[in-house]
C-alpha cells in the first residue's frame, strides 16, 4: 500500500512537472494582413505581409527589443563585432531544434549567411549587408560558434541580424522549418494564414513555462481598412496596426482603452521636385526645380501644422528632416521644422527674380508658375495633403494641379520616363540605422529620387553628402557616424531636395481580450512581443 502510495505521488509529481514545463494554452490571436504574402522564404522578404510572417516564425540570432530599442540575444547568447566592422563572432545556444526537430547549429548559420550573400539573391535583407564587393566568409569554429567575415565594414553589423531568420541546412521542409515562436500551419491563398505554436520553440519565461503563450495566430488577408475596422468593432479581430486617424478618434470616444498612440513613427511624408537634367520638362521649369531658393520657398509656404491637424487629426507632427524625432539617437536635435510663412516664401521668390502680379506668380521670363504634384491614388492622406498644399501655394500665386495615379504608373514616371514635376510620397523606415537610407542619399544610386543615377554628383552639396554617407558607413564609432549623419541632415534641410512634411504617429488598436500588448512605434508595433501575448 505504501508502494502504491509512492507510485501515485511520483505520477502526480510527474504530471505536475510536465504541467509546469508545458505551455500555458492561451487562445488565438486574430488580425489582418493588408496584402498577400509573396514569399515564406525569409531571405527574399520584400513586402510587409511577408515581413510579418518572418517576424512571427523566424528565429534570429539577435533581436532588437522594439520597446527599449536595445539589442538582445536570441539564438546567439553572445556576439562580438571586430573593431574594423568586418567581422562578427556569434556564440550560439545549444540544444535548439527547428520546428521539424532538425537540430540547429553553426552550420545552419553558415548556410543562411551564404544564401543571403548569394549575388543572385536581390533582396533588401541581403543588400543591407553588401557594403562592398567581394565574398563573405564563414568559419565554423564549433557547433555553437561561428565567425563571419564581410569584405567591407558593415555599419551596425550586429543590428542587421535582427532581419535575418535562420534557415536549416538539412531540413527537407526548407524554409518552412523555423526557429521562431510560430510555424505556418495552413495557408489559403487570398484568404487566411494560420500560424500555430512551434512545439520546439526554445524560449521559456521567467517561471520556466514554454513560450509562446498563444495557441495560434490567425491572419486574414484584408486590404480594405474600412472592413478591417468593421471587423475589429465586431470583435472578429483583436488588433489593428497603423490605425487610420479618423478611426482612432472614433474608437477613442467610445472605447479609449482600446486605442494607442505611441507617438511619432519613423515614417515621413515628403514631396520633391524633378531635378533630372534629361526630364521631358520645359527648361524654365527645370530652372525652378533646381533652385534651392525655389524649393525652400515652397517649403515655407506649406502649412505643416494644418497638415498634421487636419489630415491626420493631430496624430502627426511637422517633419524636420530625413530622420524622425522618434529615432532618438540619429535625429539631429538642432534642426527645427520649417516655419509656415507665405510672406517669407514670396519674399524669397521675389529675391530670386519671381514676380507676383494680379494674384499669380511669374518667373523672370514671364512664365506663370504652374506645376503638377502627383501622388499615388487610394492613399487618402496623400490626396488630402496634396489638395491642402494646392491651396497653400495658391496664396502665393502658384497654381498646382493635383494628379493621382495608380502606383505602377507613378513609379514609371519617377524611375524611367522622369515625366513628372513634383511627387508626394512617403518613406517607410524599417529600422533606425541611417545606413538603410544609403541608396537614397548616394547620388549614383537608382533610389536617389530627385535625380537618380548621377554619373558624378551634379552639385557640390550632393558630393558632400556622398562623402559623408560613405564615411558614416565605414566608421565603427557611433559618435563619428552620428557627426557625419547630422551634417547630412543639415544639408538636406538647407538644400531641400525633399520637402519633409509630416511624421505620422504610430496608431494602433488592441482589443481588451488581448493581454500583454504594449504597442510601440517600431514595426511590427502591436505584436512585437507576440510570444508573450495571451487572449482571454
Amino acid at each position, binding site marked *: 500500500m505504501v508502494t502504491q502510495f509512492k507510485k501515485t505521488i511520483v505520477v502526480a509529481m510527474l504530471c505536475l512537472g510536465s504541467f509546469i514545463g508545458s505551455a500555458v494554452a492561451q487562445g488565438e490571436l486574430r488580425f489582418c494582413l493588408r496584402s498577400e504574402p509573396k*514569399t515564406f522564404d525569409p531571405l527574399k522578404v520584400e513586402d510587409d505581409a511577408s515581413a510579418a510572417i518572418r517576424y512571427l516564425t523566424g528565429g534570429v540570432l539577435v533581436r532588437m527589443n522594439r520597446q527599449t530599442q536595445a539589442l538582445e540575444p536570441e539564438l546567439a547568447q553572445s556576439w562580438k563585432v571586430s573593431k574594423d566592422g568586418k567581422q562578427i563572432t556569434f556564440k550560439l545556444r545549444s540544444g535548439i531544434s527547428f520546428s521539424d526537430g532538425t537540430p540547429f547549429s553553426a552550420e545552419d548559420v553558415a548556410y543562411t549567411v551564404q544564401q543571403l550573400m548569394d549575388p543572385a539573391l536581390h533582396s533588401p535583407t541581403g543588400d*543591407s549587408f553588401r557594403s562592398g564587393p567581394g565574398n563573405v566568409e564563414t568559419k565554423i569554429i564549433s557547433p555553437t560558434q561561428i565567425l563571419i567575415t564581410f569584405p567591407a565594414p558593415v555599419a551596425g553589423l550586429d543590428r542587421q541580424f535582427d532581419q535575418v531568420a535562420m534557415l536549416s541546412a538539412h531540413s527537407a521542409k526548407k524554409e518552412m522549418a523555423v526557429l521562431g515562436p510560430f510555424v505556418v500551419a495552413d495557408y489559403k*491563398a487570398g*484568404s487566411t494564414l494560420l500560424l500555430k505554436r512551434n512545439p520546439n520553440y526554445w524560449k521559456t519565461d521567467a517561471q520556466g513555462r514554454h513560450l509562446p503563450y498563444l495557441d495560434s495566430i490567425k491572419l486574414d488577408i484584408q486590404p480594405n481598412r474600412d*472592413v478591417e475596422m468593421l471587423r475589429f468593432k465586431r470583435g472578429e479581430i483583436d488588433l489593428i496596426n497603423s490605425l487610420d486617424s479618423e478611426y482612432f478618434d472614433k474608437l477613442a470616444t467610445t472605447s479609449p482603452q482600446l486605442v494607442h498612440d505611441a507617438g511619432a513613427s519613423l515614417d515621413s511624408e515628403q514631396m520633391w521636385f524633378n531635378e533630372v537634367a534629361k526630364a521631358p520638362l520645359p527648361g524654365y521649369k527645370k530652372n525652378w526645380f533646381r533652385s534651392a531658393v525655389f524649393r525652400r520657398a515652397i517649403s515655407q509656404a506649406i502649412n505643416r501644422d494644418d497638415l498634421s491637424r487636419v489630415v491626420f487629426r493631430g496624430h502627426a507632427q511637422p517633419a524636420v528632416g530625413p530622420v524622425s524625432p522618434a529615432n532618438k539617437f540619429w535625429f539631429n536635435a538642432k534642426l527645427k521644422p520649417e516655419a509656415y510663412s507665405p510672406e517669407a516664401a514670396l519674399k524669397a521668390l521675389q529675391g530670386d527674380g519671381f514676380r507676383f502680379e494680379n494674384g499669380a506668380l511669374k518667373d523672370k521670363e514671364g512664365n506663370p508658375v504652374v506645376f503638377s504634384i502627383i501622388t499615388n491614388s487610394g492613399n487618402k492622406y496623400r490626396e488630402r495633403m496634396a489638395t491642402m498644399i494646392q491651396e497653400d501655394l495658391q496664396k502665393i500665386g502658384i497654381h498646382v494641379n493635383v494628379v493621382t495615379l495608380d502606383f505602377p504608373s507613378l513609379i514609371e514616371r519617377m524611375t524611367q520616363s522622369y515625366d513628372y514635376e513634383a511627387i508626394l510620397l512617403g518613406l517607410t523606415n524599417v529600422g533606425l540605422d541611417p545606413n538603410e537610407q544609403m541608396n537614397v542619399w548616394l547620388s549614383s544610386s537608382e533610389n536617389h529620387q530627385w535625380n537618380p543615377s548621377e554619373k558624378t554628383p551634379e552639385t557640390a552639396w550632393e558630393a558632400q553628402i556622398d562623402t559623408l554617407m560613405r564615411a558614416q558607413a565605414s566608421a565603427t564609432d557611433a559618435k563619428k557616424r552620428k557627426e557625419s549623419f547630422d551634417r547630412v541632415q543639415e544639408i538636406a534641410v538647407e538644400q531641400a531636395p525633399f520637402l519633409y512634411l509630416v511624421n505620422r504617429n504610430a496608431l494602433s488598436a488592441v482589443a481588451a481580450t488581448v493581454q500583454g500588448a504594449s504597442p510601440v512605434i517600431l514595426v511590427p508595433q502591436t505584436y512585437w512581443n507576440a510570444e508573450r501575448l495571451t487572449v482571454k
Partner: protein
Amino acid sequence: MQRQNMLARKIARHVLTVAATVLLGGFLSATLLRLAPGFDVDEEQLDPRLNSESVQALRQERLEQHNIFRFYFHSLQRAAHGDLGTSISLGQPVSTLLRERAPLTLRLVGIGLLLSWAVAMALALSAAWLRITAYDALTTAISGTFLCIPAAVLALLSVLWNVPGALAVGLIVFPRVYRYSRNLLAKAYSLPHIITARAKGLSELRILFWHVVPVAGPQLLAVAGVSVSIAVGAAIPVEALCGLAGVGQLAWQAALARDLPLLMNITILVTLVTLLANSGADVIGHMLRGQEA
C-alpha cells in the same frame, strides 16, 4: 438530315468563332497591358535598402515579356501542355491559382445572377402585368436607387450586414436586367396581336406568359447573356472588398501589379465565359425565332 447538317454547321461556326475570339482576346489583353505605363516597374524597387544591381535585376525580370508576340507565342505553346505560366506577383502557377479560385467566383456569379434575375423578372413582369402607374414608379425608383449606389458600397454593406457577397452581386446586376426587361416587355405589350388577344377574351396572365414573354424572349435571352459579363465585372469589387479569394480578387491584384501571365489568362477565361454565355443566348434565341443563325 438537311436540318441536322445545318445545325452541325452552325455549332461548328460558333465553336470556331469562340476559339478565334478567345485567342484574340488573350493577345489584345496582353498587348494592352504591355503598352500601358507601369509595366516594367515594381513597387519593390523603391525599397531604399536595395542597391543598384538589385534594382536592375528587378527590371530584368520582365525582359521576357517585352516582345509581346514572342511572349504570347511561348504562352500558347506552354498552354498546349497545360502550363499557363507563373504569376509574377504571387509566384505561383497560374493554373493552380485559377483552379483554386474559380469555384468561388462561379458560385458568387451564379447565385448573384439567379437572385438578380429572380428580383428583376418579378418586378418587370408584375409591372408589365399590373400596368399601374404608381407601381411602375415604385419599381423604377427601387431599381434606380440600386443603380446609383456604388458597387463598392454595396459590397461593404454586405460585409456590414454579414450577408453573402452573392447578394451584393445580385443587387448590382438586377437594376440593369430590370430596366431592359421592363422596356422589352412593355414594347411587346404594345404589339397589335395583344389587342387581338384581349379582344378574344384571353386573361391578362395568359396574355403575359403566352403572348408577351415569348415575343420578348430572344431579346431577354440576349440580356441574359450580357448579364453574365456584368455579373463577372461586379464580382471584382465584391470579392476584393469582402475578402473572397476568387478570380475577381485575383484580377484586381493582377491589374495593380501588371502581372501579365495572370491577367492574360484571366482575360481568356472571362472572354470564354462571355462568349459562351452570349453564343448560347444567340443560339437559343435563333431557335426560338425559328431562323438560321
